[in-house]
């Protein structure tokens, strides 16, 4: 596997943990032997070993075989009858948290086991949609690598032993008022948990509570302090904004409100024949992000120079900002800044400037000043108090804690959930510090890097296994209700652990949560039960959103902008799929082609093509982007070095590299360990997000990267990954206004829908009488609002039991995703336009795949579905060859999760689990169609428009996907298919796809639109 290819990388890590070799963790080694989903397909041998070790996984089966009945009176979503019918799913509202912040979900629970998460339309951070992380959370629940036992130095211990030892330690501390006790958690918004912690801190006044998140928003708080004199939580009203400027901010993809922002952004962007308005997005950033890909104008610029840009814009819009800044903008950047400023000024009160968490507080403050000057405060941006239980600056917290441990002041260290040994700033050497603490306890779902260094490891329950609560970005509280009985007997939630510490061990988590909310007196005691019932049922507690604060700009003296020198810059960013590394063992997210780069199973050092060539990383341009194996480079940031694979990506700023956090883990689990390169080893507390003065040297070694999209055509500096092919219909808003059909861009597209054919073909027309009314299913996708976040891909994977194949197989181009997101570049290599296109099965009426199947394993339903009959398929794969869209997938091995019995619980019972040797592909979620059909039949009516929502459509934050019946002229999909700018991919092949697209429209600023234009008109 890849490990051998990069000995250096591994040596260093082994050295790093050499002293911890005496902690043999059985499953850890087992994991090394065979990464469950990944390696077994690589060769004979590992499969043999696999069989030997089947016993181990069977043991897990035993554990998982107990009942899944949740404890405490859970309340079912009313959209389904409360009493569970066999074969019928129940939907429960609960919440998934990411670094403390909640996203509301409805969990589909089938016969006692949750199998799919869907957005909760009542929840402010979800609005019915989800992001990829949320979709993948269900896999975390069933992860076979989850820690199941209480460990002391790696030896399994009974709870009794732990509690007595803990109490004894605390008793000692009691005397010193707990001066030696330190509590380290992630960011906590949970009122109940916070309450427990406060109780604890009351009992131990000298004890201290620190919070640490590797991906934190310290800068946001500091920025508000500089601008308004207090820590505030900005909330953007993206829908109201006509012009949006994002400075080094991926607000459409990352952050507690990303899903909501994406929805609002899309709402301001949908163009129809009768709706010809569109917002405009400017993005300035070093490395292309989801947000950058959606921009009408994108400016590649070093993070350290964003400040200059912000300042220039501030001055141009007339914001009075005094800050000392070294460095100059280039003429182009200045031109860009001025154009943006003019555009912003033209939209006072309906413009918006957003700054990313990576930017120093000063830049945030400048942005606030700009918003204030433009009169956006209270309109497109509002502020609330921080939703966190105890707002803090994570970096300060971890720094202080490190100092205290160094000074030997910490005798008892209790860590809830965090993993500082892995993700704390490198200069603190946290991994060396933890063993210095005499009594350390670590609660986590995995025996991770930190657990390995602690005295005690306490296995943590998954939120779906217990009661809890959490706040959303706007403070709205969700009650988390358990969806199933804990899979493993010994796991505890943070809340339970704190309760135990506080001597309330006897209480059920349910009581803890409920009693806390009783105590809040939100409603008269008499009404509490109804209130509680409604809150749990809806997934949100009414009237808990934080009030909007009316704020006035009171600029503090601003610290100088970062030194914007010309040196080589490194930028750290949360990984698009692994976030800060917590999802490292989640194979869905590992294998999800990363938005923007389309790489999976690894992170790489991104850089511009020019830089790559200067470094000698790549030779000629064309070669640059075709190669599967990337050269390894050694990155040196003030003394610390890391070897990572270098990878050129169009649109990256020159003389800079971007490294995503979250990889290179050693104890993530059998799938996460050993993937990618650990960026934390370069990240220091004084340069958390970017640093200058980086040296990069090639090592001469190479490293294989798994990518799902590879080929690009570069001709004299112009990049065109469509190879001049009429894959997409692209135009500008202006062109649309002139000619909504965009004829001038319909190159290869057949202008008239009907092409001649030898055959009469089939008619899918409807019959009027309701008895045998015939549906005709179809889908319309709007790439204009698609941001390419990949939520649909994971949703599809979860809904349709799509297996993970592992890095080796992805390298062999055998990934199984039914839905992929194509990404095309056009324009100058330095900063091309990018177009993204979700590609499910087209369900062609003249399906080329069906024609060539010798056993009629793929045929057409009378409703126009291109059906795949798995148990008829013999696997000639001719259908795949003959599919011009290449949406068919083949089971080259037995990819399904049969090796981990616990993962059987995850499978959707409505969808066949495919065996080896058969083709599979998108079915338009036929199981959902039939479910609705049965409902409709029972009620003797037709299926209503919008009653069937495929998994992809459901997850899509921007609602770019619409599914429905085109025999019903009033259905939304029918209306969309009548839009003038509708097109079908490869129309000229006369496949008559049922999946069609609307033109990808962009709204360039005429001032800057030169390159936008020639990109649009290829």
């Amino acid at each position, binding site marked *: 596997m890849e490990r051998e290819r990069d000995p250096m990388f591994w040596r260093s890590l082994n050295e790093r943990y050499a002293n911890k070799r005496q902690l043999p963790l059985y499953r850890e080694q087992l994991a090394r032997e065979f990464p469950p989903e990944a390696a077994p397909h690589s060769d004979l041998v590992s499969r043999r070993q696999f069989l030997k070790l089947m016993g181990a996984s069977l043991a897990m089966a035993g554990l998982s075989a107990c009942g899944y009945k949740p404890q405490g009176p859970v309340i079912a979503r009313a959209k389904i009858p409360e009493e569970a019918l066999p074969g019928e799913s129940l939907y429960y509202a609960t919440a998934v948290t990411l670094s403390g912040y909640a996203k509301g979900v409805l969990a589909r629970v089938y016969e006692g086991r949750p199998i799919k998460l869907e957005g909760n339309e009542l929840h402010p951070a979800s609005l019915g949609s989800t992001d990829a992380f949320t979709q993948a959370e269900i896999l975390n629940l069933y992860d076979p690598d989850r820690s199941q036992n209480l460990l002391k130095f790696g030896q399994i211990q009974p709870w009794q032993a732990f509690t007595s030892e803990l109490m004894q330690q605390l008793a000692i501390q009691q005397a010193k008022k707990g001066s030696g006790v330190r509590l380290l958690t992630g960011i906590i918004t949970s009122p109940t948990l916070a309450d427990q912690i406060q109780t604890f801190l009351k009992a131990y006044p000298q004890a201290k509570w620190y919070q640490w998140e590797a991906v934190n928003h310290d800068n946001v708080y500091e920025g508000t302090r500089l601008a308004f004199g207090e820590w505030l939580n900005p909330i953007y009203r993206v829908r109201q904004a006509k012009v949006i400027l994002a400075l080094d901010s991926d607000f459409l993809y990352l952050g507690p409100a990303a899903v909501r922002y994406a929805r609002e952004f899309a709402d301001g962007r949908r163009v129809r024949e009768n709706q010809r308005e569109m917002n405009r997005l400017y993005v300035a950033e070093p490395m292309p992000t989801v947000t950058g890909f959606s921009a009408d104008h994108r400016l590649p610029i070093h993070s350290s120079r964003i400040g200059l840009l912000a300042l220039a814009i501030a001055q141009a819009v007339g914001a009075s900002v005094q800050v000392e800044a070294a460095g100059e903008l280039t003429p182009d950047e200045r031109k860009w800044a001025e154009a943006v400023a003019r555009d912003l000024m033209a939209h006072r009160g309906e413009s918006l400037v957003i700054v990313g968490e990576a930017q120093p507080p000063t830049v945030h403050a400048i942005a606030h000043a700009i918003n204030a000057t433009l009169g956006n405060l209270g309109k497109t941006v509002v502020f609330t108090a921080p939703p966190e239980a105890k707002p803090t600056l994570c970096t300060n917290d971890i720094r202080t804690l490190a100092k205290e441990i160094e000074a030997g002041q910490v005798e008892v260290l209790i860590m809830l959930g965090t993993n500082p040994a892995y993700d704390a700033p490198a200069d603190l050497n946290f991994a060396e510090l933890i063993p210095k603490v005499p009594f350390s306890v670590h609660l986590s779902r995995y025996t991770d890097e930190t657990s390995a260094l602690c005295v005690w490891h306490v296995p943590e329950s998954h939120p779906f296994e217990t009661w809890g609560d959490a706040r959303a970005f706007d403070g709205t509280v969700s009650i988390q209700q358990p969806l199933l009985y804990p899979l493993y007997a010994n796991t505890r939630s943070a809340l339970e652990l704190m309760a135990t510490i506080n001597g309330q061990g006897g209480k059920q988590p349910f009581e803890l949560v409920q009693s806390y909310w009783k105590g809040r007196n939100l409603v008269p005691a008499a009404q509490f039960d109804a209130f509680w019932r409604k809150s749990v049922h809806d997934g949100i507690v009414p009237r808990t959103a934080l009030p909007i604060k009316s704020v006035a700009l009171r600029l503090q003296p601003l610290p100088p902008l970062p030194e914007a020198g010309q040196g080589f810059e490194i930028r750290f960013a949360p990984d698009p799929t692994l976030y800060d590394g917590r999802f490292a063992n989640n194979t869905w997210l590992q294998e999800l082609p990363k938005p923007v780069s389309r790489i999976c199973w690894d992170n790489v050092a991104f850089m511009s093509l020019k830089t790559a060539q200067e470094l000698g990383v790549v030779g000629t341009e064309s070669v640059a982007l075709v190669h599967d194996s990337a050269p390894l480079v050694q990155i040196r940031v003030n003394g610390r070095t890391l070897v990572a694979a270098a990878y050129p990506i169009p649109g990256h700023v020159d003389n800079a590299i971007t490294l995503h956090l979250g990889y290179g883990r050693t104890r993530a689990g059998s799938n996460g360990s050993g993937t990618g390169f650990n960026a934390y080893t370069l990240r220091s507390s004084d340069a958390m997000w970017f640093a200058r003065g980086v040296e990069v040297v090639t090592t001469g070694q190479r490293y294989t990267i798994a990518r799902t999209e590879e080929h690009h055509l570069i001709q004299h500096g112009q990049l065109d990954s469509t190879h001049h092919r*009429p894959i997409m219909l692209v135009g500008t808003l202006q062109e649309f206004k002139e000619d909504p059909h965009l004829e001038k861009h319909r190159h290869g597209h057949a202008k008239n829908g009907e092409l001649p054919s030898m055959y009469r073909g089939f008619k899918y027309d409807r019959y009027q009488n309701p008895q045998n009314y015939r549906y005709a299913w179809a889908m319309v996708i709007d790439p204009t609002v698609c941001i390419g976040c990949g939520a649909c891909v994971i949703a599809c994977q979860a809904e349709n039991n799509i297996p993970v194949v592992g890095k080796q197989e992805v390298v062999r181009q055998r990934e199984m995703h039914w839905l992929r997101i194509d990404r095309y570049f056009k324009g100058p290599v330095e900063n091309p336009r990018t177009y993204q296109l979700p590609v499910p099965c087209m369900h062609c009426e003249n399906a080329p795949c069906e024609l060539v199947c*010798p*056993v*009629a394993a793929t045929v057409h339903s009378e409703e126009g579905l291109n059906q795949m009959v798995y148990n008829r398929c013999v*696997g000639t794969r001719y259908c795949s060859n003959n599919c011009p869209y290449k949406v068919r997938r*083949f089971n080259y091995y*037995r990819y399904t999760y049969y090796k981990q019995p616990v993962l059987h619980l995850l499978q959707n019972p409505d969808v066949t689990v495919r065996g080896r040797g058969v083709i599979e592909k998108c079915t338009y979620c036929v199981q959902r169609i039939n479910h609705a059909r049965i409902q409709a039949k029972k009620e003797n009516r037709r299926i209503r428009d919008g009653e069937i929502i495929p998994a992809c459509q459901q997850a899509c934050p921007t609602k770019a996907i619409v599914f429905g019946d085109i025999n019903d002229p009033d259905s939304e999909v029918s209306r969309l298919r009548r839009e003038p700018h509708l097109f079908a991919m490869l129309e000229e092949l006369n496949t008559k796809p049922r999946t069609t697209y609307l033109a990808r429209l962009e709204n360039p600023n005429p001032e800057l639109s030169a390159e936008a234009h020639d990109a649009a008109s290829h």
Partner: protein
Amino acid sequence: MQQAIRAQAVQEAPLFEGEQTYERITAQIGDIPFEKHPIGWTVAFGLGFAGTTLLIFAIAVLLLIGLGIWGINQPVAWGFAIINFVWWIGIGHAGTLISAILLLMRQAWRMSINRFAEAMTIFAVMCAGLFPLIHTGRPWVAYWLLPLPNWLAMWPQFRSPLEWDVFAVSTYFTVSVLFWYMGLIPDLAAVRDRAKSQLAKVINGILSWGWRNSAIHWMRFESAYLLLAGLSTPLVLSVHSVVSLDFAISIVPGWHVTIFPPYFVAGAIYSGFAMVLTLVIPFRILYPKLREYITMHHIDMMAKVMLATGLIVFYGYMMEAFFGFYSANLFEKYMITNRMTGPYWPVYWALIFCNGIVIQALWFPKVRHNLFWLFIISLIVNIGMWLERFVIVVTSLHRDFTPSGWGMYGPTFWDWATYIGTLGFFVMMMFIFARFVPMLAMAELKDLWYRLYGHRGGHNGHAPAKEPTHAPTSGGGA
């Protein structure tokens, strides 16, 4: 006048070397099964057997683990298996051509090589037929391709070219076997009559169905033989046309080509003759007797056929390129450019070298009469034709319509093992054939000898009934 020319031609390019009698012909060929075999036979058979073992192993692993052990992927879902299938089928065609088409065209020189070539056909088709079977994802249900209401009471889907393959290839195999076996019956009878051991007598007796050389039987035999030839001729053309339709029916750029059928058939015959030469030349060394019947004249004729078909194939390549550029179709144009300059350009140009350039040497009689060079060229042609199939299958698939779905293909150890395995199996079968069956059609040779030199062959030396005025053929009279 014409007779004179023909007689002259016969003198210059003798179809027999040395003086023959019916007795001698029978003894020379009919006794081979009873004689001790040259060491070369043992060596070749050993190699073939080793290859066969490898093949069985490779297939076992394939069935146990799955198609993943091969290099195929999305988008290149067809790889070595289909390449080899087409290659082997093509090789088979020479046999049928020699036995059927040349028979109808009354080519005297076919007589001494047809048995041999037909055997080659049968074994080649065996190798070919293996691949479509094991390349399916679930070979254990491959029988669903047969027209039986087998699963969910379903039938095969007759619009699929793969289904056509099932019929074409199985028909082709059956007819070839019938044709070959039928021609064998009288010779087996002859072996039966000469056999010393009782066992050989019995076995050959049974295999020859008690054939007794009756004139009336001969009459029916000949009309049946001629009719089979008449049926095989369109059959052999149809088979490779159908194989070519496996590609041409699809919409994949580089497959969706109208000239495929003729150009595939030509290619098939081309590679087939190359393989015949590759086999005949060593066999002549191994069994010197054969030189009396497979003369330089035969070799020369085969070389000429190779040249002719080779030129047709080359023309096909040029047409493909021309269509690609002339079609003004974005995808076609890119396809051909990609073949010539894309990542697989060496394969394409190697193919042009093998099938376009090298065979030009066959214009020169010197080359056609130099066994060594002929052997080398025939090998090169075999390789060239394999490369052609590689180009067609892989370079068309790996970059088709949507660039986002593009990829690369590379064979694995198991791909090679299976391919080499079938080569071994083929060699093994050829040598088993040589060991137990009269390698040449004795009856037909005697007939030929009688027609050409009957006046000299007859014992009571009076002139034969008729001069060999027309090119003789065993079917002529029927």
